[in-house]
């Protein structure tokens, strides 16, 4: 296939970026999207040009490091699919593809398509954990957890932290990411002890990082590679309001 590319190039956070045009002649349907990017970079090296920088690692949809806006959609045209799991069979000969970084005030651009998602780490650091130090833990079957609760907790815990929810949101809200962790830990008996402090700390940190507020557009759920449900946002709001009443 012949593919035309328009890619965001930006040297550093301090310098302005722009869309640049590229063409590739020998793109195979079986290539993954990132393998197409490898092909492009190989051709740039041959032309003595700087390669397009993009984040990626596991290339099997689980590490959460890859992510691009492809034709205006986070992770591209397929729903619930990371950029690395997208294949060129989703495009056709002669297509023009627009590739941009995940954009959000809280995700500053590092270079080209690489962005800094440290804000997510900061939210987890604020309270996205159960305070169980090594060694002080009881026998695993000492506290029973029903099948339904374990499965529901897993559904929330499956988040890969890629940031597609933020990138796709018109408000750049991190509510889906934050609420998934809050739900997982609030559902489990081990996490209930700290639920009040946790939800307040995490929501406050989310605001401090510069993410916007949720206005219930629900676009995040559509793009989320792990199909994290927006119902977690409702639960987070419930937990937050309850915590405010308890803590004041």
């Amino acid at each position: 296939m012949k593919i035309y590319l328009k890619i965001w190039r930006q040297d550093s956070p301090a310098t302005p970026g722009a869309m640049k045009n590229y063409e590739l002649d020998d793109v195979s349907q079986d290539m993954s999207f990132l393998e197409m990017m490898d092909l492009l970079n190989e051709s740039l090296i041959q032309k003595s040009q700087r390669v397009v920088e993009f984040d990626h690692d596991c290339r099997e949809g689980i590490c959460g490091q890859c992510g691009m806006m492809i034709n205006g959609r986070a992770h591209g045209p397929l729903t619930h699919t990371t950029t690395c799991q997208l294949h060129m069979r989703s495009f056709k000969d002669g297509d023009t593809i627009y590739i941009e970084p995940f954009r959000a005030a809280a995700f500053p651009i590092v270079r080209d398509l690489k962005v800094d998602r440290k804000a997510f780490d900061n939210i987890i650091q604020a309270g996205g954990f159960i305070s169980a130090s090594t060694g002080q833990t009881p026998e695993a079957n000492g506290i029973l957890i029903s099948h339904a609760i374990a499965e529901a907790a897993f559904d929330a815990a499956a988040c890969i932290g890629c940031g597609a929810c933020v990138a796709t949101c018109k408000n750049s809200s991190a509510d889906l990411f934050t609420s998934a962790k809050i739900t997982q830990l609030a559902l489990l008996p081990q996490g209930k002890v700290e639920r009040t402090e946790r939800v307040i700390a995490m929501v406050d940190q989310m605001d401090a990082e510069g993410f916007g507020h949720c206005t219930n557009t629900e676009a995040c759920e559509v793009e989320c590679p792990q199909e994290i449900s927006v119902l977690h946002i409702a639960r987070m709001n419930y937990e937050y309001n309850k915590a405010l009443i308890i803590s004041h």
Partner: protein
Amino acid sequence: MLDSKIPEGKLADKWDNYKEHVKLVNPANRKKLDVIVVGTGLAGASCAASLGELGYNVKSFCFQDSPRRAHSVAAQGGVNAAKNYKNDGDSVFRMFSDTIKGGDFRSREANVYRLAECSASLIDQAVAQGVPFAREYGGYLNNRSFGGVQVSRTFYARGQTGQQLLLGAYQALMRQVGANKVKTYTRHEMLDLVVINGKAKGIITRDLVTGEIERHAANAVVLASGGYGKVYYLSTLAMGCNTSAIWRAHKKGAYMSGVSWIQFHPTCLPQSGEHQSKLTLMSESLRNDGRIWVPKKAHDERKPNDIPEEERDYYLERRYPTFGNLAPRDISSRAAKERIDAGCGVGVMKNAVFLDFSKAIKEQGKEKIKEKYSNLFKMYDKINAVNAYEEPMLISPAAHFTMGGLWVDYELMTTIPGLFALGEANFADHGANRLGANSLLQASVDGYFIAPYSVPNYLAGELKAEKITTDHLAFVEAEHAVKQQLQQFLDINGHLSADHFHKTLGKLLYNGCGLSRTKASLENAIVLIRELRAQFYTELKITGDHTVNSELEKAGRVADYLDLGILMCEDALSREESCGAHFREEYQTPDGEALRNDKDYCYVSAWEWKGANAEHELHKEPLVFENVSLTVRSYK
């Protein structure tokens, strides 16, 4: 002489004996001691978090943009623990003997026993952290079976067990970051180890955003930087996985062991073309319900569903009736290769076998299979556009896990005092072949339960030692050497990319030092890799600058892989026997099984770097078996 420092006493008492006699550091003194941990996978994150909880100052490094990305995240199937929740005859000793046998009697008894002994505590730890393991309807933890064993001891969180365990460790780590006991350095790559008066005292790193070369001093350095299976280019590993941290430590004096013991995972997606960058793993747990087969007839072009039952060869069930589709990985991979080489391979490149769920779906219903494996079936569909509920998956063996790594003693300390290696970065527990679901376990046990005893045991002796600062000449020299190498890569200005060399090296290793090896294939590979390495230093081309530059990162990793590739071949060449994943075609039984030679090769190889232009020196650590008898490993 190599001293493995195995504690005195009976096998079951050794770890308790060690813990009871280990040196402690007064809580008030802990904050005076700095520890560097390289890598934030399950081993690194758990170690950094646990040491932070104890009160040490920890610096945690990873090359990814967040500690949560490390490749432990991709482990799918599960983690083993001898809880005996199923009442099916499991015990610490059973798990120990399964693992020793699974490793084809090429691992240390004391280490393996400790692994089994600590396994139950890991499940307790993970559950307390909020890891949502699968549960039975009564609320108790569920298990499944994995290859190479006859009990159900594998705990799992759907097909994302590694992710969930890693997030547990990552969250524990972030908690310590918040408590100011751990400082994280993301997008940082370790490029050298600093050794002063024979002891590890720090590292040199490159900030992958600014390009700055930094010096970091500490009282001890822990390498938990993972395995080097990506040396084959096409592998199940993440693109950034590398050997650089351990290889550069190796060049500073740490010995490398079992270097050629590489596991080829039997259930990966086959290569479909030259453009391919990785081979995706499909969890081994699929073999609980999937049946592996190829057409009986060679070069059969029919669609799988058109091939009648009597014309299918369920070769694992045929050759290994006791274990069937759950035969260990090395055996399953080799059996697949045998059929593919015989012309019975399927798929576009005739390099695959079928994994068929039709019988399980008929017996258990589609819903049950969906509940167990839905994410894997979905992943398969995304990559191949094939519905595996309707027709069999195509799978093929791929480079996966490195049993080899830095030589460590019982304390997980390398031959450089103060330098520890944890998880896949060391060679310690898996022998010549790793059993499924033991990898997450080993990484976690090393980080949560062993390093928090053994690292302080070393640090206790460092309290009165002279405090080293980064002004020391050794830091200056190491930084200079790192800068020089980076400049060298940029200056070559040839015409071939780092990926070109990496892919070429991978092909040479798959052919010469892959699923099976011969004296001739290994000798040939050494010659070809040497030529490739020479070409690398004259024809490499790196574009871009000193700051964010993924090509410059790759160049350093490929340079180390080229050195490592040669040592892998030399290691395989020196071992004139077949054991576990190391299959020398010259040494096999009449029915094609591995032929071990315990008389001459019952040892661990430990290779010493002697300089860029000199041969490695081989040291041997003899393996002593007092609690199991060396039997022929049979899964028939």
